[in-house]
């Protein structure tokens, strides 16, 4: 009977582990694992196919593109990329886009951090109404603001500058940042603040030295969303700029020439717009995988 009822702690642990492994094998047979992987792979193929097609086309010459359907570039060419990197009109589009996105991220995070702190820690007159009003700005369709923005920025002399686009994107990015950051900050116990103040920290010192490092992954996630929504927006960015600060997205609309659309260059330019996004996701992947629960609980 000694082999059925384990007596030493060591044996108990061993038999429990064995039972656990048995149950796990039973609950998750290999076939189900493979079905999961299959479904995931199918979705990834769905995501990648259109992007592959873009990539494929960017390496083909225009005669090959229009000559017939080829599943991969038969005459591999880099002429479209060469065109983009040598024509200042093209590559400045990327520089302009990245410039206003970074400006927007900097402005937004600087004003959103204290605001989110105020919303998460204090009660003050009008706080709930103010929060709701902030969120309504997230819901304003950019198309509504096209004309007034054009007139406003033209009047104050900011038309066709990077800062104009950066400020315009604050309309939806600041509310989003406050919303996300507020959730993260509410997850930090208030005792931390109180202890720091008792220890003699001034508010700015506490905020920069203690509080910001504590919510660093929240800031990472927020910056990711700020980048995302500023980088992909086109309507406001192209309305507020003409030549000096033109975003890449509106440079791309110029590929329609006299001889029809220059498909190859369009595809190469499109491929290059995907790269900054991949870099940004790569940097925040751990923060996302660590898990965050947005919103007020």
């Amino acid at each position, binding site marked *: 009977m000694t082999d059925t009822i384990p007596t030493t702690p060591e044996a108990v642990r061993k038999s429990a582990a064995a039972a656990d492994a048995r149950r796990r094998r039973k609950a998750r047979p290999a076939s189900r694992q493979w079905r999961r992987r299959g*479904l*995931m792979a199918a*979705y*990834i193929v769905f*995501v*990648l*196919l*259109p*992007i592959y*097609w*873009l990539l494929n*086309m960017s390496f083909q010459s225009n005669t090959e593109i*229009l000559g017939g*359907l080829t599943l991969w570039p038969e005459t591999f060419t880099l002429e479209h990329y060469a065109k983009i990197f040598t024509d200042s009109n093209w590559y400045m589009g990327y520089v302009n886009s990245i410039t206003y996105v970074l400006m927007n991220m900097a402005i937004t995070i600087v004003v959103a951090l204290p605001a989110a702190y*105020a*919303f*998460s820690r*204090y*009660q*003050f007159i009008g706080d709930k109404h*103010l929060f709701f009003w*902030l969120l309504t700005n997230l*819901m*304003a*369709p950019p*198309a*509504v*603001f*096209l*004309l*007034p923005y054009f007139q*406003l920025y033209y009047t104050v002399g900011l038309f066709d500058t990077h800062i104009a686009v950066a*400020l315009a994107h*604050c*309309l939806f990015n600041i*509310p989003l940042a*406050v919303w996300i950051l507020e959730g993260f900050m*509410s997850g930090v116990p*208030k005792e931390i603040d109180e202890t720091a103040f008792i220890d003699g920290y001034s508010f700015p010192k506490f905020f920069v030295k203690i509080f910001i490092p504590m919510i660093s992954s929240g800031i990472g996630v927020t910056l990711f969303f700020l980048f995302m929504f500023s*980088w*992909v*927006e*086109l309507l406001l960015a192209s309305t507020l700029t003409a030549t000096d600060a033109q975003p890449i*997205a509106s440079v*791309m609309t110029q590929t329609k020439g006299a001889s029809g659309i220059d*498909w190859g260059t*369009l*595809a190469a330019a*499109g491929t290059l*717009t995907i790269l900054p*996004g991949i870099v*940004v*996701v790569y940097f925040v992947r751990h923060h*996302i*995988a660590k*898990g*965050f629960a*947005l*919103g*007020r609980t």
Partner: protein
Amino acid sequence: MNKVQNNRAWWLILPMLLLVAFSAIIPLMTVVNYSVQDVFDANTRFFTGAEWFKEMLNDPELHAAVLRQFAFSLTVLAIEVPLGIGIALLMPKKGWQASAVLILVTMPLLIPWNVVGSIWQIFTRGDIGLMGWSLRELGYGYNITASPVDAWVTIILMDVWHWTPLIALLCYSGLRSIPDAYYQAARIDRASKWAVFRFIQLPKLTNVLVIGVLLRFMHSFMIYAEPFVLTGGGPGSSTTFLSQSLTTMAIGQQDLGPSAAFSLIYFLIILLVSWVFYTAIMNMQKDNKKEGEA
């Protein structure tokens, strides 16, 4: 959390407030201003009161655009939310596969919206696009410039491709924040997969889902660049959504008064739907909590 009553918190809010006010209140006032006037040129204008609003509310073309918009938004939500949750559950949790899948899945989100339109334009063309060409080879006369049904299906497919990752990403992150102890407890109770989903995962996802659905609703309601590039609103006006009607009216035809009135109505619809949705969810959560306590 117990919050301290302190009106000095306004100082922390002030910079943010000034900035948003500059971007939101001044332009909004301009729109309101236009919506009640008939502007001929810089010096000639008449006060018209609610006339533009009446005209817009009775415009059959706009009614059609609003209906199309709702049909589109509800369809994409109905597809993207369940699909996004499913993808989030399938995504690997550890190791290099987790990072790789995360980056691949997120990719469509970070592509500029008009490039998304271009990608799908290239992908679906009958002569040079993989999807368009394959469908034709299979014997289906696929043509998004002639058939409204094809155009609709393609735009919805594009939107699912583009935005399901947002729901998946939010849900994945929400799922990762569930402590392992919950799953261990469920294993001890021999809970079925469905029970684990229904009683552990779904409740934890409610918050992220509220944000995800709200964001998706708002963005799908404002959709502009993707269909504009892909179909240009056609064939006919079968895929002309509200933003596009609005920009045509405001920039193309320079009808400032009517388009301003239209803008405000448009804004109010989004506001109303979002508010109803948000309040409904919050009340549901309150009821759930009460039941839990009782």
